[in-house]
């Protein structure tokens, strides 16, 4: 596009990209995205939301139906995958089974005609970087899942790509290993200063690893923001529901005055909310409150908080926290999380209590 903002800082750019496989429906709808050099960006979203498709378009294995994808200011739409110089880690690793680990790593260097001695040095270095220095002679089938993962990572990095794409690289690992590898990948990416586009459907992974997270749904980016912003200020109901745990109360906007929305809940109660995604009175809305922002201890309720009646349905002891399920304004799934502190009250099922929160913590979003 002619009028693309020339921003020397932008490294990867999607400009109004659309993609359709069948000519009937759009899998990616009008996607625009700009990434600075060195950023760790995660595409997070439910399965089928178009994340892999975006990654494949960036890597060159799928062509955009409309729009431009640019790398370092140059449109790459017509550059074949092998000339893009983008490193890629596949979900099932795609390590070549007939080559040893070292041969796998040497492959991208060989096709770049790098001399043998230099090649060997680079392979060694890359293997050491992922702590697999002793495994060069093994076949991929002789490695555990986590080890294969490391090798796949090393292979994507060994030819010094500036941009590395990872499509659910930790999907096949168990929880503990996954957490360890998250840390490891993040560390390596930081050390090398590479730009990473990371795809996952695991929100914890996205939040802990990324500089910014793009939440995908239905072929669109629902919100693109740093993890804290995403969690604390979700822009719509989908993001609020998808990221972290969330309580929803449904109602109708009565009025919006001075940046505060008055919402009448479906049981008739009126509460003040932060109007994020509502604009005019009469609109239906979903009010979102994070479980840890709800307080039932009168002494701790902050100034300006308002209260609602609630009935305790269930108390679950989870070690570090208590999780209490309440009925609030007709919603049986209202969760409150409290820290397991010495003075913390353990609520009995059946008890009638008052709960409250700050109006700024409760966000009126789209219905």
């Amino acid at each position, binding site marked *: 596009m002619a009028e693309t903002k020339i921003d020397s800082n932008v490294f990867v750019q999607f400009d109004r990209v659309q993609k359709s496989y069948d000519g009937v429906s759009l899998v990616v709808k009008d996607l625009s995205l700009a990434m600075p050099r060195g950023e760790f960006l995660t595409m997070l979203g439910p399965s089928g939301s178009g994340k892999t498709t975006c990654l494949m378009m960036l*890597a060159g*294995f799928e062509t955009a139906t409309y729009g431009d994808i640019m790398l370092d200011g140059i449109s790459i739409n017509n550059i074949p995958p092998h000339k893009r110089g983008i490193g890629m880690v596949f979900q099932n690793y795609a390590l070549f089974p007939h080559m040893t680990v070292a041969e796998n790593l040497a*492959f991208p260097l060989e096709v770049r005609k790098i001399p043998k001695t230099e090649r060997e040095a680079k392979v060694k270095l890359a293997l050491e970087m992922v702590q697999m220095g002793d495994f060069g002679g093994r076949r991929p089938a002789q490695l555990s899942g986590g080890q294969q993962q490391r090798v796949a990572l090393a292979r994507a990095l060994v030819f010094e790509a500036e941009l590395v794409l990872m499509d659910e690289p930790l999907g096949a690992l168990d929880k503990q290993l996954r957490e360890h590898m998250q840390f490891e990948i993040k560390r390596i990416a930081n050390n090398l200063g590479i730009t990473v586009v990371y795809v996952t459907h695991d929100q914890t992974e996205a939040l802990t690893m990324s500089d910014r997270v793009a939440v995908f749904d239905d072929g669109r980016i629902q919100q693109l923001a740093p993890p804290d912003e995403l969690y604390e200020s979700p822009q719509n109901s989908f993001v609020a529901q998808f990221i972290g745990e969330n309580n929803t109360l449904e109602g109708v906007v009565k009025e919006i005055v001075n940046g505060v929305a008055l919402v009448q809940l479906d049981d008739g109660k009126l509460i003040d909310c932060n109007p994020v995604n509502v604009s005019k009175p009469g609109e239906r809305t979903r009010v979102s409150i994070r479980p840890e922002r709800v307080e039932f201890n009168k002494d701790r309720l902050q100034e300006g908080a308002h209260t609602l009646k609630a009935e305790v349905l269930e108390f679950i002891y989870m070690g570090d926290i208590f999780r209490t399920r309440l009925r609030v304004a007709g919603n049986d799934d209202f969760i409150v999380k409290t820290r397991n502190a010495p003075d913390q009250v353990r609520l009995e099922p059946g008890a009638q209590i008052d709960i409250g929160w700050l109006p700024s913590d409760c966000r009126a979003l789209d219905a």
Partner: protein
Amino acid sequence: MSVNPATAPLLSADGMPLKKSLGRALRRQKIRALMLIAPLLLFVFVAFIMPIVSMLFRSVENDIVADTLPQTVLELQSWDAELGELPPEVVYAALASDIKIAAKARKHTKVGLRLNYEQSGVASLFKKTARKAKKWDGDADAPFKEKLIEVHKSWGEIEIWQTLKVHSSNYTSGYFLNAIDMRKTVSGPEFQPEEKQVLILLFKRTLVMSLIIMGTCILLGYPVAWLLANLPARQANLLMILVLLPFWTSLLVRTSAWKVMLQQQGVINDLLVQLGLVADSARLVMINNETGTIVAMTHILLPFMILPMYSVMQTIPPTYLRAAKSLGATNWTAFWRVYFPQTVPGIGAGSILVFILAIGYYITPEIVGGSKGVFISNRIAYSILKSLNWGLGAALASILLVAVLVLYWTYDKIVGIDNVKLGG
């Protein structure tokens, strides 16, 4: 129970030692399984193992001479065949008596036929001699030496006696020697005269042409298998039907069709002439020679190459090619370095299958091969059906069998049979 559980053998519920009752249960299972496959085992034994054993046996068996002419064979033992002298009177007497008995039992033609393989003319010699010998009466007609030579002058030549002596043992390596263009003589194995040496040539031709057929099958089958594995399901199914179509038509019909296609006035020559690629006077000879055999057999064996390749290719996920390209490989490098090596097991399986089928093929070379395109199996059929030399046929077949086993073994050593995949 008060028994110390650590030292006492474990008992099952009815008080038997656990090991014993487990063994009994397993044995019952095994017997039941065996009974289920018993008909198959019996069938395999009768229809497969026994014919092979009997064939192997026939290739060395040689009872007929010793059985029919027992006294002669016994007397010949003390005769030195290499001295160049005719045997003494006792041998002639023994022969006369043997032939008389054989003629009465009508066994003389068989032994004549047997020795005729080794020296032509022996069959008629035996017939003629038997006719006369029937009328002779024991010692009254002695001496027999002159009498026999009178009946047929061959009895006065040393060759017939040498042949008799050399081929009198109950087991013989003669058929195997014949099968490799050699023969047994009094002074040990010797090559056949030049003009009779055809079998080694045939073996070589069978081997070389089978390799060529295997090669053309690989070249033609690989792209087809690749298409099968990579086309969308609907088109792949259609293609698969086309690949399997030959199996639904008679082999004879397909081979005959090639005759129509390839002959000098056939479709292909007509086309080439019309296109001006070949002069009308110089129409290509593509049938009744090696070309005909190679073309027709490649066509017939192609599915056996495509199917194993396809089943291997089907299991290779497309992400490998994508990974290779993302690492900087061109389409060709990605194919050659990443895809192709993974399909080698399929090529191996197809090649073994095609090669082994080709090496023993009979009908197609017989129909389209002419004289230059026939295989060793055609010679085996000729020995068994026409010249009735079953021993030679069996020896040729045994060599073929051993050759295939040796090749299989070599392949296993080099490539490893575990690396061969017929199915995913």
